[in-house]
C-alpha cells in the first residue's frame, strides 16, 4: 500500500501527554491518520502504545493534548464519544461477556438503554452480512464463553464494524493467533481498507508490521522517536528505532541432552470450564535441554503447567520423576522434588502484592529452616535471602522491606526468577516468563534460563510467542486441544509449518481429532 499524499485526514492526535505518578507514559505525541491507511504503532512492552490508544478511545484522559476525529475534537474520557465518531477498538484483552451470545455482545450499548426492545432480528441480518463481507465467520447465537480465541477476536472486530466504525484500532491483535489466523486477519484488514476504513495496528512484531502497514510510528519510553514509510525501511532499522540498540537474539550453544528427569506417559487431566484437559500426553524433560511448548492459549498449557507445578493431579497416565517421588503430588512435593516454577501471571499467582520483598522471597520456602523453626518465623534469615536475590538478580527496589507492588513488572519477575533458581532446581517450569517485559528484562530472563540449561537443568518453556519458543528451545512441541505434537528439533520447522500444527492439523485424525 502506497502512501496517500493529500488523502483526507481522519484522525489527528495533538500533543498527547499522560503521566502515571512519576512515569511519563506518553510524552507530547502527535500524528495524523489518513483515510484508507494502515499505521503501525511499534514499540516494545511499556513504550506507551496501549496507553496512547486508551486515551484516543476515551478509557483514559490525557493530561494534555487533544484528539480530533473527522475534524471534530473528541471530549476526553468518553468511549461513547469515540464510538459515535466512528472509532472502534479491538482490545488486547477481549472485552466480551462470556455468558452472553455473540449477537448480545455486539448489540450491547448500541441503542438507547431505555428502549423497550432489542431489535435482534435486524441486527442478526446485519451481523451476518458483515461476517460475509469481511470474512469474519462466527455464529451470532453462539455463547461467547464457548468460542476459541480466534473467534472471540472476530467478535471484537464485528462489534466495531457493526457500529459503522471508520477507524479501527487493533491492540496487539496477533499475540494470541496462529500464523494462519494472522494471515486471515490481515485479509480482513485489507478488505476493510479497500472499503475506506483506516487502521491503527499496534504491535511489537516487526515482520507483521512490515507486512500490513503503509507507515510505521515508533514509540520508545513514551516518546514518538520515529516515523517512516514502511516501503522505505526494513526490520533491522525498525528494531534499532524501537529498542535504541540492535536486538541480539539469545544464543543457544548446541549441547547433548542428559538424563531424563521427568517422564510423562499418557497423561490425562480433567477439563476445566471451556479449556480442555490433557488427553494422553507423552513428554520427557531431560537435563540440559529446553523444551518449548508452542500453541494458541487455552489449548491445555495451563493444565500441563499446573500438573508439573503440583497444582493438579492427573486423572490417568503415569508421571515419573527421577529420582522417584512418592506420595501426594502438590506444590510442596513439586518444590521438594526440585521443580522450580515461574508462573504465568506474576501479579495474581507469582506474588502477594501487599507483601514485602522479603515476605515474597520466602513464599515457597517459608516452612523450611532457616526461615521457620518449630512454627516460628526467623525474619532476619528471610531478609538475608531477599537481599541475596536482590543483589544476584539485579532487582531494582527501595529495599527488602518495600511492598512488592511498588516494583516494575521486570523487577518483580526477577525476584520470582531468583526465588525459583536459588533453590537449585533440576526442572524449571517457565510459563510465559517474559510476557509484558521490556527488552532488557526479556534478555535478562532468557540468559538466566539458558545458563540454567547449560548448568544441567531441564526446562519447559511455555509461550504464546512462537518467535520466543523458536529462539530458545532445543525441542519444540505444539499443544492443541490437550494433545501434544511430536517433538521437532530446533530449526526443523518454519513458523508457518508450526502454525499448521497450532491450528490443529497434523494431529491424529486431522484438525478434529480432539
Amino acid at each position, binding site marked *: 500500500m502506497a502512501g496517500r499524499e493529500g488523502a483526507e485526514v481522519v484522525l489527528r492526535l495533538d500533543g498527547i501527554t499522560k503521566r502515571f505518578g512519576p512515569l511519563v507514559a506518553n510524552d507530547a505525541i502527535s500524528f495524523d491518520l489518513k483515510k484508507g491507511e494502515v499505521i503501525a504503532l511499534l514499540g516494545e512492552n511499556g513504550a506507551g502504545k496501549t496507553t496512547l490508544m486508551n486515551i484516543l478511545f476515551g478509557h483514559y484522559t490525557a493530561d494534555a493534548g487533544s484528539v480530533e476525529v473527522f475534524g471534530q475534537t473528541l471530549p476526553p474520557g468518553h468511549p461513547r464519544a469515540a464510538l459515535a465518531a466512528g472509532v472502534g477498538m479491538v482490545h488486547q484483552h477481549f472485552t466480551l461477556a462470556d455468558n452472553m451470545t455473540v449477537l448480545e455482545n455486539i448489540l450491547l450499548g448500541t441503542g438507547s438503554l431505555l428502549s423497550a426492545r432489542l431489535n435482534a432480528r435486524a441486527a442478526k441480518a446485519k451481523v451476518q452480512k458483515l461476517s460475509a463481507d469481511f470474512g469474519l465467520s462466527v455464529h451470532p447465537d453462539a455463547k461467547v464463553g464457548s468460542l476459541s480465541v480466534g473467534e472471540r477476536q472476530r467478535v471484537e472486530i464485528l462489534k466495531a464494524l457493526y457500529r459503522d466504525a471508520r477507524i479501527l484500532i487493533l491492540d496487539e491483535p496477533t499475540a494470541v493467533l496462529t500464523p494462519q489466523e494472522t494471515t486471515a486477519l490481515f485479509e480482513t484488514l485489507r478488505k476493510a481498507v479497500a472499503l475506506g476504513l483506516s487502521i491503527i495496528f499496534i504491535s511489537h512484531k516487526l515482520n507483521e508490521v512490515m507486512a500490513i502497514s503503509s507507515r510505521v510510528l515508533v514509540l520508545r519510553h513514551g516518546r514518538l522517536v520515529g516515523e517512516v514509510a514502511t516501503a522505505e525501511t526494513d526490520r533491522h532499522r525498525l528494531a534499532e528505532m524501537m529498542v535504541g540498540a540492535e536486538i541480539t537474539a539469545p544464543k543457544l550453544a548446541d549441547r547433548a541432552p542428559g538424563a531424563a528427569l521427568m517422564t510423562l506417559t499418557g497423561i490425562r487431566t480433567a477439563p476445566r470450564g471451556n479449556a480442555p484437559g490433557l488427553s494422553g500426553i507423552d513428554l520427557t524433560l531431560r537435563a540440559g535441554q529446553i523444551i518449548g511448548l508452542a500453541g494458541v492459549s487455552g489449548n491445555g498449557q495451563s493444565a500441563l503447567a499446573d500438573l508439573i507445578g503440583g497444582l493438579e493431579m492427573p486423572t490417568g497416565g503415569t508421571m515419573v520423576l527421577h529420582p522417584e517421588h512418592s506420595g501426594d503430588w502438590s*506444590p510442596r512435593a*513439586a518444590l521438594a522434588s526440585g521443580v522450580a516454577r515461574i508462573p504465568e501471571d506474576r501479579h495474581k*499467582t507469582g506474588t502477594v502484592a501487599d*507483601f514485602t520483598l522479603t515476605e515474597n522471597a520466602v513464599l*515457597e520456602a517459608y*516452612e523450611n529452616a532457616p526461615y521457620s523453626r518449630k512454627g516460628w*518465623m526467623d525474619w532476619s534469615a528471610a531478609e538475608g535471602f531477599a537481599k541475596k536475590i536482590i543483589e544476584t538478580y539485579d532487582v531494582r527496589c527501595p529495599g527488602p522491606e518495600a511492598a512488592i507492588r511498588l516494583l516494575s513488572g521486570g523487577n518483580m519477575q526477577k525476584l520470582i526468577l531468583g526465588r525459583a533458581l536459588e533453590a537449585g532446581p533440576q526442572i524449571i517450569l517457565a510459563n510465559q516468563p517474559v510476557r509484558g517485559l521490556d527488552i532488557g528484562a526479556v534478555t535478562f530472563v532468557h540468559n538466566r534460563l539458558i545458563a540454567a540449561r547449560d548448568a544441567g537443568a531441564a526446562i519447559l518453556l511455555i509461550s504464546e510467542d512462537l518467535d520466543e519458543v523458536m529462539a530458545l528451545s532445543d525441542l519444540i512441541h505444539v499443544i492443541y486441544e490437550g494433545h501434544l505434537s511430536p517433538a521437532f528439533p530446533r530449526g526443523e520447522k518454519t513458523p508457518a509449518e508450526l502454525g499448521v500444527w497450532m491450528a490443529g492439523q497434523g494431529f491424529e485424525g486431522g484438525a478434529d481429532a480432539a
Partner: protein
Amino acid sequence: MRLEPIPNPSALRRFGLPTGALALTVLIASALALLAGANPFATLGLILKGAAGSKFALLETLNRATPMIFTGLAVAVAFRAKLWNIGAEAQLYGGAIVTVLLGTGALPLPSLLLLPVIALAAMLAGALILLGPVLMKTRLGVDEVVTTLLFNFIMLLFVSYLLEGPMKDPMGMGWPKSPALDKAARLPRIVEGLRLHWGFALAILSAIAVWVIQTRTTLGYEIRAVGLNAEAARFAGIPVGRVMVKTALLSGGLAALAGFSEVAGLKGNLTLDLSPGFGYTGIIVAMLALLNPLGVVISAIFVAGVFVGADSMSRAAGVPTYIADILMATALLTMVLALKLTTTRVRWR
C-alpha cells in the same frame, strides 16, 4: 471519576483522613442530637461523662469492652484471612452454653483448675460452631457470610430451647434463664471491691497472643498470605484450606471466650439477652482497629465507651440510646472510606 493508587501516602493523609472520618461521625451525632431537640454539645458531653466521667463509669466501660475485645479479635483474625466470620454471636453463645454446662457442678474441680478447663472447652465449642460454615466454604464453595449469619439465628433459637427446657433454672420462676454458676466457676474480680473481673485481663492477654501469632509465627504468615492473595498462596504451596480451618478455629475460639467471660465474669448465668449484638459490634471494633489485634483493645474500649455513654446520656438528655448504634455504623463506613482514600487518589477526569 477514577481511583489512582498512591504508592507512598503522606503522613497527613494517613492520619488526617481517619481523623476526618471520626470528625464526620461526631458531626452526624450532633445533627441527630439536634433532631431530638437536645443541645449537641451537652449531648456529646454527657456521652463522654457517661463513658469515662467517673471511676464507676470507666469500669463500666471496661466491663462492656471485654466481650467486644474478644469478638473484635475473632473478627480481626478471620478477616485477616478474608474469612468473613459474621457469626461471632453464635460462637459467643456456644461458649456461654459450655460455661454453664461445666460450671454448674458437672466438674468437681478447684477454681484454679476449673476455670481454664471451662475456658478451653468454651473455645472448642466456638471453634466447632465456625468449623461447619468454613468446611462448607473450603469444600463446597458456599459463601460463609450467609451461613455464619444464619447460624446466629439458629443458635439463638437453640439457646431459647435450652433455657426453656434442659437448662432451665428450676428456681427461675418461669423466666428463661439457666441456673447460676458455682462459686468456683466464677471469674474473680481483679481488685476486690472494683467491678472489673479477670475476663478483662484475659482479653488483653488474648490480644497480645494474637498479635504474636500474626507477626512471629509461621501460621500468622500463612494467614496473611491467604488473606492477601489466596491464589498466590496456593501456588506457593500454602495449604489454603487447612489455613482457613486453623483461622476459623482460632476465630471461633476467641468469640466463644466472650461468652465464657460474660457468663463467668459478669452475669453468673445464661439468659437470652446475654449479648446485645456483641458479635456484630465485633465487626465494627475490628474494622476501626484496622484488624490490628492490639488496636482492637483500644477500639473496643472506645466503642464500649460510646455505648455506655449513650445509655447514661439517654436517661439525662432524652436522646434515644440508639444514637450509639448509628454512630458506630457511621464510624465503620467513614473509616473504611478514609482508609481507601489514604492509599488512592480520586481523579475526576
